[in-house]
C-alpha cells in the first residue's frame, strides 16, 4: 500500500490527500454518522448494494432523497397559518418513508414525532416538530455533502489509478 500511496501522491498534482487518507476520512465520517444516530442499518444496506456494477448508487439515492425531502419541507413550511393536518400528515408520512429507506434515522424519528402531533391536531406541536425535522435534515444534508465529495474524490483517484 505504501508504495502505492506514494505513487499516487507523486503522480497526482492535486489534492494532497492520498487515497488512503481520503478513504479513511470517509469512513470516519460515516462511522460518526452512525454513532450519532444520523444513519442507521438501512444505510448499510445501501452501501452493500453499491458495487462495481453500480458505483454511483449511494450517491444517487442520497440525491433523490435530498431532493424529495427538500421539496416536502418546502411544502410544509408554506401556509403555516392554517394547518391542514391531513395534508401535513401525508407529507410527513412520505418523508418518513424516504428517510427510512435511506437510513436517515434522526430525520425519521423526528418525522414520527411530527406525525403524532398531526394526529393530535396540535398546531404548535407540529410547527415545532417541523423545525426539529428541518434541523436534523440539514445536519444530515451537510454530512451527506461532505460524504459525497469525498466519494467523488476517491473515485477520481480510482479511475486515475486505473488509467
Amino acid at each position: 500500500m505504501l508504495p502505492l500511496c506514494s505513487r499516487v501522491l507523486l503522480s497526482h498534482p492535486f489534492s494532497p490527500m492520498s487515497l488512503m487518507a481520503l478513504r479513511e476520512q470517509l469512513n470516519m465520517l460515516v462511522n460518526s454518522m452512525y454513532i450519532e444516530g444520523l444513519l442507521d442499518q438501512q444505510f448499510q444496506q445501501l452501501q452493500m448494494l453499491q458495487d462495481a456494477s453500480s458505483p454511483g448508487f449511494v450517491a444517487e439515492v442520497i440525491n433523490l432523497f435530498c431532493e424529495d425531502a427538500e421539496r416536502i419541507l418546502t411544502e410544509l413550511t408554506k401556509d403555516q397559518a392554517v394547518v391542514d393536518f391531513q395534508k401535513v400528515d401525508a407529507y410527513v408520512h412520505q418523508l418518513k418513508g424516504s428517510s427510512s429507506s435511506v437510513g436517515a434515522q434522526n430525520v425519521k424519528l423526528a418525522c414520527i414525532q411530527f406525525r403524532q402531533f398531526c394526529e393530535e391536531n396540535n398546531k404548535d406541536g407540529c410547527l415545532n416538530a417541523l423545525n426539529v425535522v428541518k434541523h436534523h435534515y440539514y445536519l444530515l444534508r451537510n454530512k451527506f455533502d461532505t460524504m459525497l465529495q469525498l466519494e467523488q474524490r476517491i473515485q477520481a483517484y480510482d479511475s486515475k489509478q486505473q488509467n
Partner: protein
Amino acid sequence: MTVEERKGHLMREEGGQNDQFPVGMRVLAVDDDPTCLRVLEALLLRCRYHGAKAESFDLLKEGFNVDHFVPVTTTNQATVALKLLRENRDKFDLVISDVHMPDMDGFKLLELVGLEMDLPVIMLSVNGETKTVMKGIAHGACDYLLKPVRVEELKNIWQHVVRRRKFSHKDYSNFDNGEESERHQIVSSEGGQDLNISGSTNQNGKLSRKRKDQNEEDEDDCEENVQENEDLTTQKKPRVVWSIDLHRKFVAAVNQLGIDKAVPKRILELMNVERLTRENKYRLYLKRLSTVASQQANMVATFGGSDPSYLHMSSLDGFGSLHVLAASGHLPALTSLQSSKVLDRAITGGLGNHGFTSSRIVQVGHNNTSTPCNDLNRFQHINLPGNQHGSLLQGIPTSLELEQLQPRRIQEANSHFPGGFSDNKLATATPGSSFVNGTNSSFISQTLRQQAHPRRFINHSSIRATPISTHPFHVGSECSSHFPDLGRCKDTRKCAVPLTAYATNTSSMGSFTTDDECPKFKDNLTISQRDTNIPTISSTSFMAAPPRDPSIGRDRQCQANSSIGRTMLLPTTMDREMKFVNFSSAGNSKERLEPKDIYIDENDITISSFSSSTMSNNFMIDPFSGNQMMNNSHYNKRMDKSIISLTTASSSILQENFKIDDSTVDDPQKDTYDLEITKLQGGIVIGGCNLDDLVNSSMIKPERDEISLMDSDTGCDFYPLGACM
C-alpha cells in the same frame, strides 16, 4: 445479445431455477417516493442478481437491452402502474406497491390488481400497524413489508410468488408457470430513464408473454382439470384447489410472516386468489383468515364422513369451504368423514381442535343442514377455532353441543362450531353450508355426525385442541405437506399427514400413527407421529388414528395420547400447520359400527391430542373416530369428535390440500379420506381431504355404512389433512 439470448442465458443460469430463486421474475414496483422506489429497484435487482451475472448489470447500465436483465419496472404512479399491468398482463409476475400514494390508495390498487390480473401483490409501507397490515391482507395482498425493505425479505417473496403460481396453475407442480421467463425489465418511468428500455421491455414482454401464455394455458388447464374434478365431486373442488393454493399461499405467507412479519401478508395473498375465484365465499374466508392471521392451523376437521352424499357435499362443501378456508388460511381440511353419521360426531370432536391457535377453525360441525346431511353425514365442520389456545375447546364443546342438537345426523351443530373458532375461517365443511361457523375460518371440520351420537363428541371435543399452539396442527402442518402432495410437511412431524395417516390408518385405524400409516404422508409427515401413535404429527398430528381400533390409534393419535381416548388428535399443529383434522371421518362412517364402541372413547379423543404443541389445531382428528364410528356407529360419536380435526393446520398446512385421502387411505375405504389437507393456512389443514375425494372416497362415505369407517380408516383419514401441511 438479443433479448432472447439473454433470457436464455438467464434461464440457463438459473438452471432450473424455476424451482429456485426466480430470478427472472418480473416485478412492477410502484411507489410515489422516488427514494424508496430507487432503493427498492436496486434491491430487487440485487435479488435478481442472484445467480445472474454481473455483466447483465453492466449491460443494463449501458442502456443495453435491459430488458431481460432488468427485471424491475418501476413507476411512481399507481395509475400508470395499472395501465402497465392492464396492457401487459403477462409481463409481470409480481407487483410491489406502496400503501400510501397520492393518486390512488395502495389498497385499491391491490384489489384491482388482484381481481383483474391475479397477480401476487406485495404491499409496502412505513406504517406497520397491525390494523393496516390487516387491511392489506383483507384486500388480498400476498405480503406486507415494512419499509425499509431488506434484501432478505425480498428474496423470500419470490418464493411465495412461485409457490402461488405453482399451485394455482396446477395443483402443485407447476413450476413451469412460474418459470416463465421471468424477466425483469427495468423500466423506470420515473426518471424517464432509459427510454430504450421500454423498447426492450416490449420485446421482453413479448417473450415473457409467450411464456406467460404458456403458463396461462397451463394454468388454465390445470384449473380446468381441477375444476373438472371438482365438478364431479361437487364443485367444491375448484374452490378447494384454490383454497388450497390460496391457503397455501396463505400459509406460506403466514409462515413467512410468522418468521418475518405478520401473517397478514400471506393472507392477503390468499385473498387475492380467492377473491378471484370465489369472491363471496372466499371473501368470507379470507376475512376470517385475515382475522385469524395467526395461522394457527385451523383445524378443519371436517369430517364429513357421513353419507357419501354428504360427504361429497359436505365434504365438498366443507372442503370447498375448507379450501377456501384453507386458502384463506386455514381451512382445515376437513375430513369429511364419511359416514356422516359419525361424522357428526366426529366433528364435534373436531372441535376439540380448538387448539387452534388461531384460527383454525374447524368447522366442523357445520352440518349445515343444508347438506344432505341427511344423515348425520353432515359434515360438521368443526371449526375449531381454537387457535391455539384452547379456544378450540370451546369450539368443541360447542360442537358437541351441536351434536346434541341433532341427534343424528345433523349433529351438525354445524354451526356450532365451536364457536371457539377464533379465526376460523372455518370453512364449514358442511356441504353447502359453507362453514358453518365461519367463525374462524379455521377448520372446518366437518364432522359429520352421523348419527346422532351426539354428544359423544362433546366429550371428545375435548379434542383438545390441544396445544395447538402453534401451528396447525399437526398433521397438516407438517404433514400437510405430506399429504398428498404436500410434501411439505414442514415440520416433518407434522406431517400433517394428518391424518391421512389416519386414513391410512383406517385400516389400522387406530394406529394412526400417522407416521406409520400415513404412508402417504410420507416422510414429511414424519409426523412422526409424534407420539408414536398419535398421528399427530409432530405437533399436532392428529389424529385420528383410525379409530378402528378403539384403542388404537387413538391413543396414538391422540396425540399425545393424552386423552387418547381416542382422540385422535391430531396432531397438534405442528407448527403452524394445520392439522387437519378430519377426523371426522371416523365418525362418519358408517354408522356406527357398533363394535366400536370404543370409539367413543376414542373419539373423544381425537383431537385431544394434538400435539400439545403447537398445534393448536390439533384437534383431533378424530376422524377415526369418525371412521370407526362409522363403522360402529360408535364412531359416530366419536367421529364427531374426531372430526374436528384438524384444521388447524397452520396456515401452511392447509394449503396443501392434502389429500390425504387416497394416499393415505390406502384402504379403499379410505378413499374418502381425501382428506385433503388443505392446509389452511391458518393452520387449518384441512385434511385436505379433498372433498371430492372425501366425498367420493373417503369420506367414509357414509354410504358405506358398512364399511364403517373403520375400514375406511378414512375416518381418520379425513382429517389429517390438516396436519399435513
